[in-house]
């Protein structure tokens, strides 16, 4: 298993907003978090929102202090994730299907007599 750093930038939180202010980090460096866990609360000119984590992994670096203004597209957080070289990666949508070595069955067949 190799390790890889993935950096997540501040997304446009809607309708062409250009920046957001970090209100409160809900994770700390070293935390191991799940995908979609609350990551950070930020405030835009429209509202305060909690951004869920786009990624499971260990938090390696927070790129902004609380009360700091972050432009859209600038780094927000870096994760360290375990990667396997031969593990198939799903696309942006969906998950890699798994195949049962021996599929379950309930129906038995009777060969035809002809």
């Amino acid at each position, binding site marked *: 298993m190799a390790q890889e750093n993935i950096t997540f930038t501040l997304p446009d939180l809607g309708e062409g907003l250009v920046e957001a202010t970090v209100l409160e980090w809900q994770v700390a460096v070293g935390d191991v978090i799940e995908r979609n866990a609350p990551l950070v609360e930020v405030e835009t000119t429209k509202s305060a929102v909690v951004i869920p984590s786009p990624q499971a992994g260990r938090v390696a670096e927070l790129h902004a202090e609380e009360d700091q203004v972050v432009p859209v597209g600038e780094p927000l957080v870096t994760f360290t994730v375990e990667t396997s070289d031969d593990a*198939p*990666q*799903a*696309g*942006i*949508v*969906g*998950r*890699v*299907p798994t195949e049962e070595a021996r*599929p*379950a*069955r*309930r*129906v*038995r*067949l*009777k*060969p*035809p007599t*002809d």
Partner: protein
Amino acid sequence: MTELIERTATTTDVPVVELSMQQAINRALRELLAEDPDVLVFGEDVGALGGVFRVTDGLQKEFGDKRVFDTPLAESAIMGMAVGLAMNGWRPVPELQFDGFAYPAIDQIVNQVARMNYRTRGAAPMPITLRLPSFGGIQAPEHHGESLEALFAHTPGLKVAVPSDPEEAYGLLLQAVRSDDPVVYMEPKSRYWDRRPVRLREPSSPIGASRVVRPGRHATLIAWGAMVQRCVRVAELAAEDGVELEVVDLRWLKPIDTAGLAESVSRTKRAVVVHEAPLTAGLGAEVSALVTENCFGDLAAPVQRVTGFDVPYPAGPLEPQYLPTIDRVLLAVQRTLEY
């Protein structure tokens, strides 16, 4: 079909490499871009990103952003652009990112791509291959698991190809892109990660030919895309009960290999069609009709259909119940055996 005969390969020295279906399609695209300077690959995120499923990975880097390029998120415009490019001598290979997002482009596909050759009395052929990641099986959200094959097969002027494994994906894409007719090439997303040895050979059978994946004598299972592998599984289980099922991979849903189907079913005397799409007016009805018309005297039982249900494609967790299960296919086989 003459273009294929010219391209029949020698059987010696065919390289064999292990590839996933994603990589096999990528390999075919790379070879097509290299062999024909008129081939263009474009769509949403196919360029810099390399496609959401990595299918076009590295192609822009290798062939430049004039031949492999990103488009706006506008499916109708993607297909409209393909029409204009084809009219000006290019050989476009557009991608629409997911099956469900082909609907906004149906006007271009049905009213322009499929008809231009006919409308212009052959002056403006449409050598377009629409790559369409299709079907379900990856627990994706709505619009990412649709089966549109009956819609395309019903449209005069379109050909429809569906690969079921990496080697088929490689060969069918070469055939599709080299064809001067428009082809909808439906990639079964749930098989993208399927890795197998691939013989990198020229297509050896003409457009429209089916193939026997597994021979058998008691009944024929007819499928395409991801359901082919499911039918192979069913055949393995049936063999434990002493029932030998033949599995036919249709490969081309337009034109359909009527002769190939008739050859198989006239031997086995029973047929079961399996597809992911809903039952009503699905392509299984067409296959069933063709088999019945051509094998009526040989059939020992009515042709059975095992399909998705007549409901909108369900959200991820319900997918295993919606898609034809192994037991549902086995039950249909038993119905034909007991008839």
